[in-house]
């Protein structure tokens, strides 16, 4: 055995093993969105589900992101065929009501689905407290770099994307993020 050569060969194998070990600590599907920190893509979409109570808008109204300057906005992309969207629905509805008075606006964006099926789904789920918008031809979804549904975006008061959440979101996660956003922006005009 020539130990010097053997050691050299082993030394060459170490980086490969290191890279693979690093790979094990990563999730290839967790792709970091480049959007947070950037201005949120603008949109002007029409309401198809009005929402409830104080939050309600008229069906057919156009919602523009630009009209919400100075407000925290939560955008939730969903679809009636999306099974995971059922898990987060109750939490979203409750949080939307809770934070309405603090100036937070929630909007659902229907992704790759049809209006009538969206409406039926909302009915089946026992209502949705905030308005949902139609996104014809998924253009807004593509603007937001959507990978699938559900995904939730938080737009801060200065109109930037603050967070992106992939998969079903819980009430706790929602309030944590909203509280910190409201705090951050408290001093801002």
């Amino acid at each position, binding site marked *: 055995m020539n130990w010097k050569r053997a050691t050299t060969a082993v030394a060459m194998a170490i980086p490969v093993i290191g890279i693979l070990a690093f790979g094990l600590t990563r999730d290839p*599907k967790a*792709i*970091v*969105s*480049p*959007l947070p920190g*950037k201005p949120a*893509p603008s949109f002007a979409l029409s309401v198809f589900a009005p929402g409830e109570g104080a939050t309600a808008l008229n069906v057919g109204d156009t919602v523009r992101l630009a009209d919400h300057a100075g407000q925290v906005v939560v955008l939730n992309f969903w*679809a*009636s*065929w999306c099974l995971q969207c059922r898990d987060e629905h109750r939490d979203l509805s409750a949080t939307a009501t809770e934070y309405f008075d603090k100036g937070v606006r929630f909007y659902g964006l229907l992704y*790759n*689905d*049809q209006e009538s*099926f969206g409406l039926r789904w909302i009915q089946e789920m026992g209502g949705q407290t905030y308005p949902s918008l139609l996104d*014809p*031809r*998924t*253009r807004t*979804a*593509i*603007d*937001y*770099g*959507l*990978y*699938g549904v559900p995904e939730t975006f938080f737009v801060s008061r200065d109109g930037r994307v603050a967070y992106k959440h992939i998969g079903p979101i819980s009430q706790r996660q929602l309030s944590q993020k909203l509280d910190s956003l409201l705090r951050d922006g408290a001093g801002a005009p």
Partner: protein
Amino acid sequence: MSHSWALALVLLFATGAEAQVGSAIPSMPARSDSALEATTTMLASELRCPVCQGNSIQDSPSELAQEMRSVIRDQLRAGRTPDEVRAYFVDKYGEWILLAPKAEGFNLVVYLVPILAIVVGGVVVVRTVRRSTTGPAQGA
């Protein structure tokens, strides 16, 4: 097995499909402009489909990929250059969406290592042949 569930799924998907059917007409290729189509196809083959992980949006049968192709087409039609279209998608989805990494910075490694392998290997082959050649043992 629960057939009703299968049927429910059919209906659920019919939904998505219908939504797409309704919107499929504008995404039909504009037959007049074959150069536009060629550029669209080229760009679509370079971009990774977000919902299917492996395929390009050119190859993917998913609805999102279909819409992304039409986004490319629309942007090209509006006068954007292929680089600007690429930049748009990188802006939205990150570098991840490019199926061939941009040949700059650290990414050069992935382009240079194979070339380096050929060069180094070529030198080794030449040296091996030189060193091992003893001349013909007998005439041919």
